[in-house]
């Protein structure tokens, strides 16, 4: 064996060598990866001088896919990215819809919709956008096997590109949700079939994809040729900062400009910071606690109502959620089309006990409640508070906190007594939640009611929106009075921006449009 003397010189060499490797590593990384938060901490003077309009956005979820028809298109992060890269035929504006790629539309008959597609729109690669592209996109969505939004198109019959700028959609039954569905149908070029298209996709939206690392970062650049005028921003970066404290620090130091989903206990501190502005808006996100109506004792509406009366929703919202929540007045949030304004169940433990006695449970009963780890803001505290209220009327609840993957499995299999969760009405139309979750056939919570089914189907198959609202009012009343679940609160979206950001308007479904945003110089 060769003798190998370890000398000080060799030690120096090793240290030097490892430094070299390190620097080489860093250099390599910064070349191929620039998705993280920028290297310079805040240097306000240079930021003011430069004319580049760069905006950095971080939120608590990662963008995993840019495929607008795939398994991810129910995820807010994918919808958010799609909103910037692609365009839609129409866009939701309050409870109405405004033209985008579709200049105008009409219902030729109850089952035929004709859309006039805007002329002169091009994709990022320069090719023109035609009715064929829209047809392709719609067919991709309708035939997608793993997209959670495919169900929206159950009544779809056929789509036809009558000519380059006319599109005809035929439905099996009248479709009251046509426009709301189309506001989530992102248009891609008709030839985007190859597998790696979505690694760097091409759309016709206000921003082009510069680079995308799934689960990590997305960098977009402004589309000079956007049909409705180029956006002010030249660069738009989305980064993933999963840790809340780190995310809020990055906002305070100016490493990021915009973030949302701010926990209730952090708002006060951020509000004090001079260069940060807090924006609170209603959202499509809300909490519900379902009862499994196919299991005893929740097959009895008296028991379900008793459970609701046992809970002091107003106090819970005030104490736990403060400004981030609001007591619900309907089984769907206020901002969603189809919501009603009803009186919430009064906190009345005595009445709750009477109802339980009437149902045959004078001494209460034991049951369980499941929720998923991280399934909503302060979900653990909410669950604990509800359980302690219930113990006061003699109902002992076993808490089952599980990981999301396991929770989904149990939820879908109807293997639970009570289920606490948040839910988002992503389309902004009541049908997405009411029609999908409360119809007997769906059997999501064991509750079955023929009258409700009829109303839900009628609301779905009516294109007269005023008529639909009336039908949903009756739907909401039934779900409310029958206490299919407890609907404690809807959540507000709390966004925080640095004050130099102008024109940012948060969206109730977490997919704000950044084309209107600019950075003040």
């Amino acid at each position, binding site marked *: 064996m060769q003798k190998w003397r370890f000398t*000080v010189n060799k030690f120096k060499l090793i240290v030097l060598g490892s430094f070299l490797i390190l620097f080489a590593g860093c250099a390599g990384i910064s070349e191929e990866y620039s998705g993280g938060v920028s290297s310079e*901490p805040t240097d306000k003077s240079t930021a003011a001088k430069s004319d580049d309009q760069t905006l950095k956005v971080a939120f608590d979820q990662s963008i995993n896919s840019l495929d607008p028809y795939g398994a991810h298109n129910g995820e807010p992060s994918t919808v958010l990215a799609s909103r910037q890269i692609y365009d839609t035929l129409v866009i939701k504006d309050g409870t109405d819809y405004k033209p985008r790629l579709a200049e105008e539309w009409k219902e030729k008959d109850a089952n035929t919709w004709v859309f006039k597609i805007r002329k002169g729109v091009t994709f990022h690669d320069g090719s023109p956008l035609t009715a064929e592209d829209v047809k392709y996109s719609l067919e991709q969505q309708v035939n997608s096997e*793993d997209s959670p939004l495919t169900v929206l198109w159950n009544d779809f019959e056929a789509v036809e590109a009558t000519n380059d700028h006319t599109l005809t959609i035929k439905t099996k039954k009248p479709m009251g949700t046509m426009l709301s569905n189309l506001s989530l149908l992102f248009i891609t070029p008709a030839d985007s079939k190859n597998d790696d298209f*979505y690694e760097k996709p091409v759309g016709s939206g206000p921003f082009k994809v510069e680079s995308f690392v799934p689960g990590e970062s997305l960098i977009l650049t402004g589309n000079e040729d956007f049909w409705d005028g180029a956006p002010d921003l030249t660069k738009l970066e989305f980064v993933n900062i999963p840790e809340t404290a780190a995310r809020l620090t990055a906002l305070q130091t100016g490493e990021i400009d915009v973030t949302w989903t701010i926990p209730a206990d952090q708002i006060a501190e951020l509000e004090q910071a001079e260069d940060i502005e807090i924006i609170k808006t209603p959202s499509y996100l809300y909490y519900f606690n379902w009862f499994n109506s196919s299991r005893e004792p929740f097959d009895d509406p008296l028991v379900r109502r008793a459970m609701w009366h046992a809970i002091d929703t107003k106090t819970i919202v005030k104490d736990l959620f403060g400004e981030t929540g609001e007591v619900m007045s309907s089984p769907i949030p206020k901002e969603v089309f189809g919501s009603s304004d009803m009186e919430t169940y009064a906190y009345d433990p005595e009445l709750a006990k009477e109802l339980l006695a009437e149902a045959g449970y004078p001494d209460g009963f034991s049951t369980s409640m499941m929720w998923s780890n991280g399934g909503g803001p302060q979900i653990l505290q909410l669950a604990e508070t509800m359980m302690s209220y219930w113990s006061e009327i003699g109902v002992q609840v076993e808490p089952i906190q599980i990981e999301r993957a396991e*929770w989904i499995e149990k939820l879908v299999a109807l293997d639970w007594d009570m289920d606490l969760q948040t839910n988002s009405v992503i389309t902004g139309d009541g049908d997405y939640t009411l029609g999908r979750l409360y119809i007997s056939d769906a059997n999501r919570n064991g509750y079955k009611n023929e009258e409700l089914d009829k109303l839900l189907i009628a609301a779905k198959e009516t294109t007269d929106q005023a008529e639909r609202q009336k039908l949903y009012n009756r739907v909401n009343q039934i779900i409310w009075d029958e206490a299919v679940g407890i609907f404690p609160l809807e959540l507000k979206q709390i966004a925080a921006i640095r004050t130099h950001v102008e024109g940012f308007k948060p969206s109730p479904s977490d997919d704000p449009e950044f084309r209107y945003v600019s950075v003040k110089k």
Partner: protein
Amino acid sequence: MAGYLIRRILYSLFVIWGAVTIIFFVIRVVPGDPATVMLGTSATEEQILELQKELGLNDPLLVQYVNYLKDAVNLDFGESFKLGGSALDHVFYRFPFTITLAVTAIIISITVSLPLGILAAKKSNGIIDWMISTTSLLGQSLPTFWVGIMLIIIFARFLGLFPSGGSGSIAHLILPATTLCLPFIGMIIRLIRNGLLDELSRGYVQTARSKGLKENSILYIHVLRNVLIPVITVMGLLLGEFIGSAIIIEVVFSWPGIGRLLVDSILNRDYAIVQASVVLLATVYVFLNLVVDILYGYIDPRIQVEESR
């Protein structure tokens, strides 16, 4: 020596295979699978069954396992259902970030603990010695994620010295690497201190002293290099430890390394990525161990590797 090497390599392969096997079954035993996660809450049971069939999740577990091993031997670790594309590509993309973090942590460990270790040995049982012991105990007992968040709040938010997270420059490395090595610095300081004290009581030191050599020359020229042998060994093992324990730190500092990828993939039941990451981590760990063992023999010829009989 050759026989020893072959035995060690075979043993390493066995360890890697063991890790793959355990993770393969463990992640399939926990409730929830890619099909349920993919389809989410709006899925019907039929849809889930359909997708499970499509993904091959309905085959008997052993069949899946054998197929998986066959592909793995050909370095095909499957496709990521969550992120799309080859799982190995994602893992290899992230791995250099983790390595960079771990190497930086090693460098910080050395630069901090070497002078402090020497200082502690020189003034053994003095106030400095006591302070170092206390601080190192503190470093070991504080939870990593908390230390990480504290460092962000102090050094990024209040002092504005370093970025709060992300990657892209050397400044981004400092806070996560410091958090990573903090629990171990105390141990390394004590290793150096005790090693030095041990050596200083040896015969050759007395000889050197009686020869009239200055105390500093004895320390730096003769004693230190003998002490460095175990230190280098520990560093090699620590590198493996750092790579493996970077998970929490990568989440706190939004560092795009393999640990964060692994956490996300476990939550999403992204089997392909979980398995590919574990294979890579196990391989690196085993390889580092092997290198340290072999180097050890070279650095100190008194330690002879056992020849195969």
